[in-house]
């Protein structure tokens, strides 16, 4: 399984903090984004935002990054700490 987590405004828009995906459903981060976009219109609208960031296993990655079983994939808006 691949664990997918959402943070901040993204989590609130989707009303979802976490979900899991079967390993064979996606090869890359972009595949996951596509699958999530296909869920429903609100998800599609949210993932149409090009400023969203993605981290796999706590490291920032881009859409072509390969995912594998056991990975934790996170989606979140640009950061605003400090």
């Amino acid at each position, binding site marked *: 399984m691949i664990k997918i*987590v959402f*943070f*901040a*405004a993204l989590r*609130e828009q989707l009303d979802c903090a976490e979900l899991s995906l079967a390993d064979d459903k996606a090869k890359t981060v972009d595949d996951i984004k596509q699958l999530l976009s296909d869920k429903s219109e609100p998800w599609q609208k949210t993932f149409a935002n090009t*400023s969203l960031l993605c*981290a796999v*296993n*706590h*490291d*920032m990655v881009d859409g072509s990054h390969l995912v594998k079983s056991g990975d*934790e994939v*996170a989606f*979140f*808006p*640009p*950061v*605003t*700490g*400090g």
Partner: protein
Amino acid sequence: MLNQYVDPEISIQANDFSLADEVALLEKENLTDGAVVTFTGRVRNRNNGNSVTTLTLEHYPGMTEKSLAKIILQAKERWDIGRVKVIHRIGELSIGDQIVFVGVTSEHRQDAFAANEFIMDYLKVKAPFWKKEKINNAGQSSENWLAAKTTDTDKADLWS
């Protein structure tokens, strides 16, 4: 299962911190460093023309510590610095509350000044924290997530 990072140089905490205590720790049994540079960030009462009542900080546990550790390592590679401490608070904060602390020591002041500013600039654009503010505008209360500022990205880019 992802590794959880325990690092004495980094603390993500709900509790407040004492500037005096942190300076004392940076200086304790440290007789080689003549410079101690600290930065403290606090909650302002106004933002984008609105009166702020509270600020809530969310973060991504695990990734936060990992990204801060990477930033501290980059600072150590770039400047000749001694001790480093980064504290970031999470949860609900009020106006005037301390949010963030960065302390750096070095033999001479230039390295500590530069490294401190670098760590703050990178923290702003790389560490996974998000602020939600509660504002009061003409008696109307509302909540919104802060948008990232391009000025912060531009400032961080100056170091590369």
